[in-house]
């Protein structure tokens, strides 16, 4: 469980994001617009440098016409929401059983040493955060890490090196998060 932190600059959805969230609210019956919260928070996080600040959560509450506490309690429950600032690229390593027996723990150690950070820490240049997450459903293609919307499967030290180099060179397409 994470604590809700109170820092963060003011936040408002972009026009496109606001229209998207309002569209999502219509997928649920009248007065059930609260159901759009999970997706609205994903969008808010995307537009707030990868994390949910209190202003971002308060804005989601306002748009959904619910109380801020209803947003905080949801945001603090689900593991995909970051309640602290993160780097531009969040490297989420699966370390559950099937990935562990294929060497996930060693790859995580390798990456921590390479970047000089521990889990849930961000490099000084603000580029990378390392997270250790539980099973992402890629057990047959283990080990793996998720970055943004992309699964890097059959992961190796070489692939990690190449990915980190590509990130540093600005070669990662944020639309797909794939390497070029």
């Amino acid at each position, binding site marked *: 469980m994470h604590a809700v932190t109170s820092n963060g600059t003011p936040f408002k959805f972009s026009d496109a994001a606001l229209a998207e969230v309002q569209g999502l609210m219509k997928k649920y019956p009248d007065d059930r617009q609260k159901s759009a919260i999970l997706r609205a928070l994903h969008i808010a996080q995307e537009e707030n440098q990868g994390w949910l600040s209190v202003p971002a959560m308060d804005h989601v509450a306002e748009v959904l016409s619910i109380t801020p506490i209803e947003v905080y309690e949801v945001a603090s429950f689900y593991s995909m929401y970051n309640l602290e600032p993160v780097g531009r690229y969040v490297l989420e390593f699966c370390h559950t*059983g099937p990935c562990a027996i294929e060497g996930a723990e060693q790859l995580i150690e390798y990456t921590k040493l390479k970047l000089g950070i521990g889990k849930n820490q961000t490099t000084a240049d603000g580029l990378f955060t390392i997270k250790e997450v539980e099973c992402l459903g890629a057990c047959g293609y283990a080990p793996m890490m998720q970055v943004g919307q992309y699964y890097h499967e059959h992961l190796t030290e070489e692939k990690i090196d190449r990915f980190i180099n590509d990130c540093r060179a600005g070669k990662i397409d944020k639309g797909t998060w794939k390497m070029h």
Partner: protein
Amino acid sequence: MGRKLLLEHAHVEGIDSYEVYRKHGGYRSVEKALKNMTPDEVVEEVKKSGLRGRGGAGFPTGLKWSFLAKPEGVPRYLLCNADESEPGTFKDRFLMEKIPHLLIEGMITSSYALGANTSYIYIRGEYSWIVKILEKAIAEAYAAGWLGKNILGKGYDLDLYVNPGAGAYICGEETALIESLEGKRGNPRIKPPFPAVKGLWQCPTVVNNVETIAAVVPIINDGGEEYAKLGIGKSTGTKLISACGNINKPGVYEIELGVTVEQFLYSDEWCGGIKNGKQLKALVAGGSSVPILPHFLVTKNIRGEQRLMTYESLADGGFESGTMLGSGGFIVYDEDQCIVRNTWNFTRFYHHESCGQCSPCREGTGWMEHVLWRLENGQGKMSDIDLLADVAKKIEGNTICPLGDAAAWPVNSAIRHFREEFEWHVREPKTCMERNYGLVKEPEMYVQG
């Protein structure tokens, strides 16, 4: 070999598009159901098929559907559980990525059977690219007239939406999924009332796994009796198995229920045997929650009979010497793997994923993780082994939802079958940090004469 019902066309070029899917017989089940069958007749076919829930519990689907309350003027909902998060399980992902229209078609036919006019696919948030695949398929289905108002001119309306989660294993539990879909924390509800009476927004609701809903398509196309001809006994039809671990060919396979475990594990058609010429040490047959089996109980049951890939055969022997088919997450361990470490790893998973409502699960999973960690790191005491078993026993059956049981079973079964390996960790604290134990001995009583 055996017939494929779900993945038959999964490798056809462009099958994720509406045109190609339709060309290969797609949406016939909707035509057949809406034009020639009443909703109750569709439910009857599913009952006849013997289809059982493919998410893990194996409850008969037709029976589940028949429990749905139908009060006048109250909407009913069908929810597809695509929250696939059980370690070892990646079959639904494969189906949705490869052949998304099969799920959409199954949702339409099933929603018609249940009288639902709005249905949702609740998919785990990490599968974000599959959300796009499904939404594209849904848009194509709307454009072709399979969704929306007055489908096929038969007066039936259906809207279908995708609702991504945000990272929580517990949301695969059906009442937690409903809470999450209502925009709340995924805390499971106390049952009764069951979702069939009071589910989403207190309305009658059915929650079915992706594979279950997809299986409705061949059942309606070919008839429930045809479907029931596949498989053995009460394990009818086909099942998707996601195989991983120390095997030559990890992947998703559709098998006819009744294939022997030995064939599935060693034949080149499926897992292709243990990788690097190693020996089999253990098997988790149906996702991390099911009891782990030692090598000598994998291909044969305690009476020395062939074990089959069916609900009944895998469960043969109960928790003493059997396991469960579960979700079909088939995790294979070779002789080099450490059972104590694996049990610690799974327990950490359950501790992390416990929603925290029930004390036995919230506290018990944490204590089990703690004790397993010290055993694994050469700091354990002999009494820790019974302590672990005791904590696991106190969680089991004492929680609102089955996550407690799911956390207890891997621990109970690991101690039951691998006690000598646990004891070795205590006796040889230095050695256990340097190497793993190897295979456990088969007890005398199991050796066949």
